[in-house]
């Protein structure tokens, strides 16, 4: 059997993805709006990911502070710890790590759910019922991730700072009040705003790739597994690409 040309396959998939994005914006602007389903999806995504994001954030802050402490202590610069941790976490580590965790949890979930709906004809059943499945399933999920992932990132960042403050309290005898005072003094709007804008794009990418892979799922149950798996891989790569572009643009404009 002739093997498909990988370059051709990649270009076709890229074309399909851009068509999918175009359709998303078209459907987003047209009536009816599926507010109820959007709220349901936002609730599900936030509710089901909050513990995972919280634990990840807490360990992230804890480990980051524990690892950095000896190096800063060598130069007698422990007092810089809150500023260094807060800037690193808010600007870069928090959004990227939390988005990667969300990609594993949410994007794969969307890919598997929509993919299994595709192979079991539930999407066809929806269409026959007169409901636009793209609007009902895809638009609501992409909008939900675009809105919820930034909130999860803010929550994860906050928990990471608590983890870091705990280490400083135990190891360095630094009070929580002093820690957070130092941490927030070091932060400026140019740290927070680009990171927040970036996190909306992360959310969009997570919903987009999961929905795209699920909606175009083929080959039965094997295809569902592939959709879920490739959603995580492709989303993770896309997150790094978005991060690179965001950092590059921030560097130009600040």
């Amino acid at each position, binding site marked *: 059997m002739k093997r498909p040309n990988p370059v051709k396959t990649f270009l076709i998939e890229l074309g399909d993805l851009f068509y999918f994005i175009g359709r998303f914006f078209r459907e987003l602007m047209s009536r009816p709006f599926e507010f109820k389903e959007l709220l349901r999806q936002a609730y599900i995504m936030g509710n089901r990911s909050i513990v995972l994001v919280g634990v990840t954030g807490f360990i992230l802050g804890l480990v980051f502070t524990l690892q950095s402490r000896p190096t800063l202590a060598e130069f007698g610069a422990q007092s810089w710890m809150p500023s260094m941790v807060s800037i690193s976490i808010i600007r870069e580590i928090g959004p990227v790590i939390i988005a990667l965790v969300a990609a594993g949890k949410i994007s794969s979930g969307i890919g598997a759910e929509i993919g299994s709906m595709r192979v079991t004809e539930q999407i066809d059943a929806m269409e026959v019922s007169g*409901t636009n499945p793209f609007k009902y399933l895809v638009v609501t999920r992409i909008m939900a991730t675009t809105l919820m992932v930034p909130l999860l990132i803010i929550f994860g960042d906050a928990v990471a700072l608590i983890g870091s403050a705990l280490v400083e309290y135990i190891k360095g005898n630094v009070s929580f009040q002093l820690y957070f005072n130092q941490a927030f003094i070091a932060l400026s709007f140019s740290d927070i705003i680009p990171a927040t804008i970036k996190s909306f794009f992360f959310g969009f990418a997570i919903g987009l790739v999961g929905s795209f892979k699920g909606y175009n799922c083929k080959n039965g149950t094997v295809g569902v597994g592939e959709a879920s798996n490739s959603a995580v891989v492709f989303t993770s790569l896309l997150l790094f690409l978005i991060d690179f572009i965001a950092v590059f643009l921030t560097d130009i404009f600040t």
Partner: protein
Amino acid sequence: MEAQKEIVIEIKDLYKSFGQNRVLNGFNMTIYKGDSIVLLGKSGSGKSVMIKCLVGLMQPDSGSIKIMGDDPTKLSQKELNLLRSKIGFLFQGSALYDSMTVRENLEFPLRIHPELLAQKETRVKQALESVGLLDAIDLMPSELSGGMKRRIALARAIMLRPKIIIYDEPTTGLDPITSKEITLLIQRIQKEYDATSLIISHDIDFAKAIASRIIMLIDGINYASGTALELEKSTDPKIKAFFKQT
């Protein structure tokens, strides 16, 4: 006699290919009001493709389709949705929405009919009573057996009291007893709702029990048509192959 009856579905010269594989090769079919037509064919013969073209889930390469006078390939989305609400569709694997309860599954087709929302509760209960599963109203699809899923899917198909009901392999994958129950249920629903039925199947026993007329889809065309008795007498090996199984 047929000339005086109202034509509900009319398909002329329908062609559909997937790459080099030509599935429908000039398929023709006329269904009259009140008919119970079984479209018989081997697995992969294009039966499901044909009905997906019929309800606008697939676009045919060429040919014309008329459902109650409307061509689904030429309608706007709104008009197509209106036409679809006159058609009940029972999918092969039931296609119940996994994340919704039975009640929500049944309410789903009413979403685009705000005028019917007031009757939501009555309609759901009535449809469930018709299939004998009123007790399952708050269950999730994962809690239902294969036969129950098929019945609930049938209840969902009749929620809008359609004029046409299309069944895609309604007895496939079910045990003989449940198959018989589904067969009886389809007959009862057809009488109760005065609907025209188009049933896709490769099960000859089922076809014999339910069909007023059988259309055989072989090599992408309507190869033969007639009552089960007429087709059984045929000497054509392609037709005989179906009846040999019994």
